[in-house]
């Protein structure tokens, strides 16, 4: 079972690597680059929501800070090296995540959601209402960074392959992290924090570390986004993007890294589909409506997200196989009541 999941992910990455060489046009490459960058954002959020059980509604702030940092650090003098630009942008986002996490992790549940949203809105209005980041107009990136002499990020193909490489790196890093003692402890915190404390885990530093790592990875995605578009504006930090990132991981299936990957692709391809005037004509400007209906339908039919699709299909084919285990669960619940 585990093997098939690994093969699935490997195939996805191979297909992405081949795509530009087997017919991906300029438009396609641009869209898929964008999706891969959002997939990094979704993966960073999955670490908090799906793994640790912390529903963060301010992930866009870290994404936006990474993006702004990449532009501001690049300066107006000449091309920076991506080798320091990306780590510096990640660091900026991680520092903000440290401050936000240190305070917001003192709250729980719905309060945590609201506090993370409030901090994200704060960051949004700092760039929106001050000249620091060019106000509502945003700022342009004067020189795209380079990697050595040859690789210039003005070229879409370089940008595409570098984004893919970063996505693979982030996916691999999180896979290793989740299997480590740290990752297992985060999973334990999600399932039963009370028991984790009773067993001897001081949970706060674990959650804070997860928050900072997540913020740093979101910042990495944001920096790539700024380099790709050559432009940043406050909308990168808006709660719409935080919400979209949450929808991506819910649509894909919480609790699975590949869910974040699948979810980002499904969400953004659906968005492209409903925005297409060639298909919907005048109605394309009401694309939110179509998206909403599809997402509600998906959550109703696939409560475990797209990741659960094979299982749902298998159960449909096998008939009512799921009934027995449900009765078994009831029995043990009655035993507990005695």
């Amino acid at each position: 079972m585990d093997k098939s999941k690994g093969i699935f992910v490997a195939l996805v990455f191979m297909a992405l690597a081949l795509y530009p060489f087997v017919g991906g046009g300029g438009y396609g490459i641009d869209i898929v680059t964008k999706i891969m960058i959002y997939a990094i954002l979704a993966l960073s959020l999955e670490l908090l929501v799906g793994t640790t059980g912390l529903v963060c509604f301010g992930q866009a702030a870290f994404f936006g800070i990474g993006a702004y940092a990449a532009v501001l650090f690049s300066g107006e003098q000449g091309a920076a090296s991506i080798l320091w630009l990306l780590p510096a942008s990640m660091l900026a986002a991680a520092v903000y995540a440290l401050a936000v996490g240190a305070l917001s992790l003192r709250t729980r549940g719905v309060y945590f959601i609201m506090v993370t949203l409030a901090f994200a809105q704060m960051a949004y209005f700092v760039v929106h209402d001050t000249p620091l980041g060019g106000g509502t107009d945003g700022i342009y990136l004067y020189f795209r960074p380079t990697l050595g002499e040859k690789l210039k990020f003005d070229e879409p193909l370089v940008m595409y392959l570098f984004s893919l490489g970063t996505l693979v790196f982030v996916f691999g890093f999180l896979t290793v992290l989740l299997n480590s003692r740290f990752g297992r402890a985060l999973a334990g915190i999600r399932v039963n924090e009370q028991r984790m404390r009773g067993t001897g885990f001081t949970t706060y530093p674990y959650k804070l570390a997860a928050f900072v790592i997540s913020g740093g990875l979101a910042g990495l995605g944001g920096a790539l986004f700024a380099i790709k578009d050559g432009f940043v504006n406050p909308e990168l930090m808006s709660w719409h993007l935080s919400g979209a990132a949450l929808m991506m991981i819910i649509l894909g299936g919480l609790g699975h890294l590949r869910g974040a990957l699948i979810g980002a692709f499904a969400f953004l391809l659906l968005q492209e589909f409903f925005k297409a005037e060639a298909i919907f004509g005048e109605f394309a400007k009401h694309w939110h409506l179509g998206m909403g209906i599809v997402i509600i339908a998906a959550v109703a039919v696939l409560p475990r997200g797209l990741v659960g699709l094979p299982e749902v299909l298998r159960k449909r084919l096998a008939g009512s196989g799921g009934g027995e285990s449900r009765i078994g669960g009831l029995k043990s619940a009655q035993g507990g009541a005695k």
Partner: protein
Amino acid sequence: MANDVLLRGKDITRRWGGLVAVNKVSIELERNCVHAVIGTNGAGKSTLINLLSGEIPLSDGSVELLGKDVTGWTQPKRARAGLGRSYQRNTIFPSFSVFENCRLAAQAKHQKGWAWWERADRCSVSTDSARDAAHRAGLDKLMDRTAGMISHGQKRQLEIAMCLATDPKVLLLDEPLAGMGAEETERMLAMLDELRPDHAILLVEHDMDAVFRVANQITVMVNGTVIARGDPDFIRNSPEVRVAYLGEGH
């Protein structure tokens, strides 16, 4: 033999607003001794465990663990120092395997959270103590099962196994026999006998037959205070206890 007192609670008090849930309870848990706490529902037995383990803070009094004053310590810190507890309601990790439940508990002693590149299941220290704990609790055959899917009695065993996996010196067991069948009860009592020599055990339990069989010391609580304490024979014959608690059914 004062050295053998592993956990000492002194004048432990917990107030919730005007209500005094636990009122000046002192208790000593010795190695090689099962100390049962009995009492009616609402007598403050579970609250006492919560106070000793650090899950809720004391209003007054002090707790000493292995000779150190731990009153100001958080629950995780007390747990790492050797204070293990089980819960009245199952608080396992239902979506994990039985083995992973034990392994994660054992990991608490060897956290190494920074070693992000090392696979958790390759850490032989925690896998070994997890296997050992599961074996002692009689769960060998269920290691790969999902914890949420095993029977109620097995979940109670898992509660204890997770507690043992942290290698505690003091065990606070909150109704480990609740909802167990006769055979499972026998196994659990045999396990308590096995654990007794190396541990100080506090046992909160409603099954009186079991308590009088296994306990060396019994404390009787009513309305948050201790009304009697002594060996099983003493408690059985105490008129006060008969009136306040044991006599209820007659």
